[in-house]
């Protein structure tokens, strides 16, 4: 089993957002880059809601809007607190989002990822699909010097390996660089693509042209488990899904598709997707453990980016932008070290962590580090409160000959009875603390 003679500056494992960002950044800067993807084509294994946050991509490919496959730009965000029959919503819609360079888009990942990959190739990287990296190759000092794959022909060598391998992080695990995922820190999300004619989508959501609507939902739809549902408008389809922390699924015995079916048949949701044809079904793990669940993200000859680095801001439903940004920063760091002829060893790759700390990525990850534990301990936030809010809203709105003061009293009484005054205050304080 001979070694491939040539040596790459960097090998990127995985062709998702963070791997593509890293490979593109390095190739664009003249580095010799090999990207290895196990899927049949880039994007074939990738699943996301999916929202594209323009800013993160713009910093990598400024003119991406010219040819990237985008579905709709988001002009309206709805946040729904749901109980079994109602939702209490906060909607924000602004014509300001109909700007020349919109800020958020809905996308279909299989298409988007292939476009991104074509850019990586244009930039000069070599992209190998249908090839699985099985192991990291280390030298006597434990420095990672290449990878082994499931193809014949021995290892491929590189000065540094970027592990953009996604949430499971199997290669990192096998190499002893990280621990196995914990059921509490990973969510399992399922989603379906519902196809409807463009005009029908536009009528139902009061949109036109390329504009789109995003709904994020929480409440009794997750049966007291930590999780959220979503509904995104694409051009001719609607992405609808729901996800919860894995440990909660095991605890409650609920099934992901059971939740999704319930969510789809909720009276607030069903009319939006009525008559649609389901064409795709997908499931994916999301690393939602936050900052505290992050593995080591750099070491001797390796860096970790994106989902593999657990970079997801669950509160703001952001992930792909953190992935792209971490990939870009990893790429920039490696380029910087190469130009200065510094080795990509443990000491020098610390620069990646440093740059990530200075960016919004780790600042946001730090900000919300208490949220996962908080939600885990305070389940009533996702169950009791949505019910209470819904009940309060209905009491307030129903005209039934009762005096308004009486109604207000009734609402307060329910709140106190269900949670207790002290409980309410404590919840407020706890939430504020976790949020800060």
């Amino acid at each position, binding site marked *: 089993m001979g070694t*491939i003679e040539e040596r790459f500056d960097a090998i990127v494992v995985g062709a998702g957002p963070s791997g593509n960002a890293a490979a593109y950044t390095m190739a664009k800067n003249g580095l010799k880059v*090999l990207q290895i993807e196990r899927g049949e084509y880039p994007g074939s294994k990738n699943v996301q809601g999916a929202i594209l946050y323009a800013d993160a991509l713009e910093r990598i490919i400024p003119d991406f809007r010219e040819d990237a496959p985008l579905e709709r730009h988001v002009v309206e965000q709805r946040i729904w607190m749901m109980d079994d029959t109602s939702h209490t919503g906060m909607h924000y819609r602004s014509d300001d989002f109909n700007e020349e360079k919109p800020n958020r888009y809905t996308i279909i990942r299989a298409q988007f990822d292939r476009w991104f990959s074509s850019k990586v190739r244009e930039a000069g990287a070599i992209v190998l699909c249908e*090839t699985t990296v099985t192991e990291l190759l280390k030298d006597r000092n434990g420095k990672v010097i290449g990878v082994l794959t499931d193809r014949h022909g021995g290892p491929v060598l590189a000065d540094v390996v970027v592990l953009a391998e996604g949430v499971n992080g199997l290669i990192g695990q096998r190499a002893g660089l990280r621990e196995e995922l914990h059921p509490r820190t990973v969510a399992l999300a399922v989603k379906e693509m519902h*196809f409807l004619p463009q005009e029908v989508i536009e009528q139902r959501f009061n949109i036109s042209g390329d504009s789109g609507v995003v709904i994020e939902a929480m409440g009794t739809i997750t049966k007291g488990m930590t999780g959220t549902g979503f509904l995104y408008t694409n051009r*001719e389809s609607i992405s609808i899904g729901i996800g919860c922390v894995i440990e909660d699924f095991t605890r409650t015995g609920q099934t992901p598709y059971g939740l999704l*079916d319930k969510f789809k048949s909720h009276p607030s949701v069903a009319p939006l997707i009525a008559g649609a044809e389901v064409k795709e079904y997908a499931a994916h793990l999301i690393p939602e453990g936050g900052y505290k669940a992050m593995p080591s993200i750099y070491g001797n000859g390796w860096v970790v980016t994106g989902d593999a680095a657990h970079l997801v801001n669950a509160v703001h439903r952001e992930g792909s932008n953190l992935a792209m940004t971490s990939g870009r920063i990893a790429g920039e760091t490696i380029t910087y070290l190469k130009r200065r002829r510094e080795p990509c060893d443990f000491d020098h790759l610390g620069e990646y962590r440093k740059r990530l700390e200075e960016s919004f990525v780790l600042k946001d990850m730090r900000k919300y580090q208490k949220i996962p534990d908080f939600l885990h301990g305070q389940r009533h936030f996702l169950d009791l409160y949505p019910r209470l809010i819904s009940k309060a809203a209905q009491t307030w709105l129903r005209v039934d000959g009762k005096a308004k003061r009486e109604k207000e009293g009734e609402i307060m009484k329910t709140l106190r009875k269900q949670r207790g005054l002290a409980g309410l205050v404590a919840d407020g304080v706890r939430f504020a603390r976790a949020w800060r």
Partner: protein
Amino acid sequence: MHIVVCIKQVPDSAQIRVHPVTNTIMRQGVPTIINPYDLFALEEALRLRDTFGGEVTVLTMGPPMAEESLRKALGIGADRAVLLTDRFFAGSDTLATSFALAQAVRKIGETWGEPKLVFTGKQTIDGDTAQVGPGIARRLGLQQFTYVAGIQDVNEAAGTITVLRRAEGGVQELSTQLPALITMLEGTNEIRRGSIADVLRGARAELVTWNAQAAGIADVTSCGLRGSPTVVKRVFAPKTRAAKATQVEVKDRTPETIAEDLIDQIYARQPGLEDDLMRMAAGY
């Protein structure tokens, strides 16, 4: 022995969607693959090369993006790839396609030596005509074996080939003189996985790209739409055909309720069925 394999990049039919409203095929975003039947042809060619030496040239006609399938073929182990691409070729039916490919095979022969064998898959999954292979053979005056299930023997010295050909009612063992054209059946071999070196070479190789002129095609009126007598009159989704099949409406609820609803409707249409099933379940 020089072998030419004609391949086609086709949409992955497993992932094609029909628009639920307009009934048109939604091509956008459908990944492309090498026509699966062509992979059996490629593998068979590579095996012959491995046994007898020589080279395997893959040839495809298509838009510039067909490059992807050629790189894949190189990654599997082909030695050389030729992309035949020109706007003159757009809209070709099988007559025009076999015309252009035959010319390109001729040109390949002039450039890298006469091929002893030309392979194609038995048909493509997007056209299903199985006409292009025989068309090439006819135009080049090659012996042709279609629906070949296996190659029994190649005698280089005598210039003969013996194949197993699947025919109605059995398998034929047939021999003929080289050069010949063979269209391969599915399931006849297992396509190999290229080594790391192969896939790296495939990713980086300089492809030979010919337009009509470079391929030595002087008569472009025989190419593309102009050279294609076939006219697509209409595309439509077939209606439910079987006499006993009926489409029923179910209320879109949970899988369980949909199943219950369906069962109720079947019982309603077939009086006595429920009783029969119950009796069977009870064991008498």
